[in-house]
């Protein structure tokens, strides 16, 4: 952790408003992006981000300097997002699961393609919310199946199966995108001719 950030955190602990503003501006876009990953609307993401920042400032004294501050803030944001997710769940967890069968061609295409940020976000957004949440928690944020099961209030095996199905669907979406982006991918190119 750099000295400037340490100083900023010390001033934030003393409830210095200007330091709190500076800290917010430094990490706001990352916190909001994390919040946005776990929800479908920017309004709800803003609520999650607000709640997360208040927790960050309130519990700043508990933060240990040898840890990554960004990682600590992200964990708080993910936990807050999951609390929102569970609050809004209302028996949707299993209802929104719709299987889409990926063809072997899609899977191959997804493995080879180099995707843009927009494509990845679109593919993630296309996943059923239950799958998306587990895939993000496990693949992106690095939580274990046990932690995910506790966070979501589900069985460990449910977490595993949701991840497996989510991964397959993600591959299918990305493969389909890749094939649409390069419609003649399977065809020999004109230059080669």
């Amino acid at each position: 952790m750099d000295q400037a950030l340490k100083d900023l955190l010390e001033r934030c602990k003393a409830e210095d408003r200007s330091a709190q503003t500076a800290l917010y501006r430094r990490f706001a876009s990352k916190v909001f992006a994390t919040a946005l990953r776990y929800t479908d609307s920017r309004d709800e993401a803003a609520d999650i981000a607000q709640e997360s920042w208040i927790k960050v400032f309130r519990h700043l004294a508990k933060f240990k300097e040898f840890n990554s501050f960004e990682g600590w803030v992200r964990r708080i944001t993910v936990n807050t997002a999951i609390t929102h997710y569970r609050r809004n769940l209302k028996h949707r967890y299993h209802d929104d699961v719709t299987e889409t069968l990926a063809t072997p061609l899609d899977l191959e295409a997804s493995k080879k393609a180099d995707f843009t940020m927009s494509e990845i976000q679109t593919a993630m957004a296309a996943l059923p919310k239950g799958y998306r949440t587990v895939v993000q928690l496990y693949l992106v944020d690095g939580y274990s199946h046990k932690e995910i099961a506790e966070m979501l209030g589900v069985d460990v095996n449910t977490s595993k199966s949701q991840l497996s199905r989510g991964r397959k669907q993600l591959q299918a979406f990305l493969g389909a995108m890749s094939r649409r982006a390069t419609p003649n991918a399977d065809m020999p190119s004109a230059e080669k001719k």
Partner: protein
Amino acid sequence: MNQFKDMPTLGPGESPWADHEVQLREVLNGAEETPPEGLEARILEALDAQTIQPNATNRAPWIAAAVAGSIVVASIWMSSGEELLPPTATVPVEVSAEQVVEPVRQPSLKQALEVAPSEKEAVEQQPSEGANEASQAAVRTEEKVADRQKLEVLTGLGSSAIPASLDLNRAPIQSSQTQSDTVRLTGTLKLKQ
């Protein structure tokens, strides 16, 4: 294969991480999204509100305890209301001591009858028996003073002319001194005339 070293470990039977999943993880972890403009102000407002709130929240348990305590005391007082009445019931004891002067009052019976209506009013206004007795005692004390004045007018003697030992108004009234003392007083007055 170095790119997979940071990926979460997979359980047995799960398909290995694909390139697109590594890319997805990297892209989403580094993602930044500009938060809504008003979010910063909302967070700072919430922080300001929380710095004021703690005092109120610290006081809240004390206020709640005080209210609960007063309710308990009130309920105990209400349930044992009859037991707490006796202190007012002691008033008649004092009144009985005053009743010793009853024979002296007899000459001004007419006046006593004139007072009676107001006394009756007092009875109607006072709900408790003890308070009624107290008001009667007050009326009798007034009557006693009036009687003494009448006696002075009738006899032409000042109260100082009567020996202290024989002056009923000066001598301490004993509950044992009843009609026998009154008879002696009447005899003395005749001798003086």
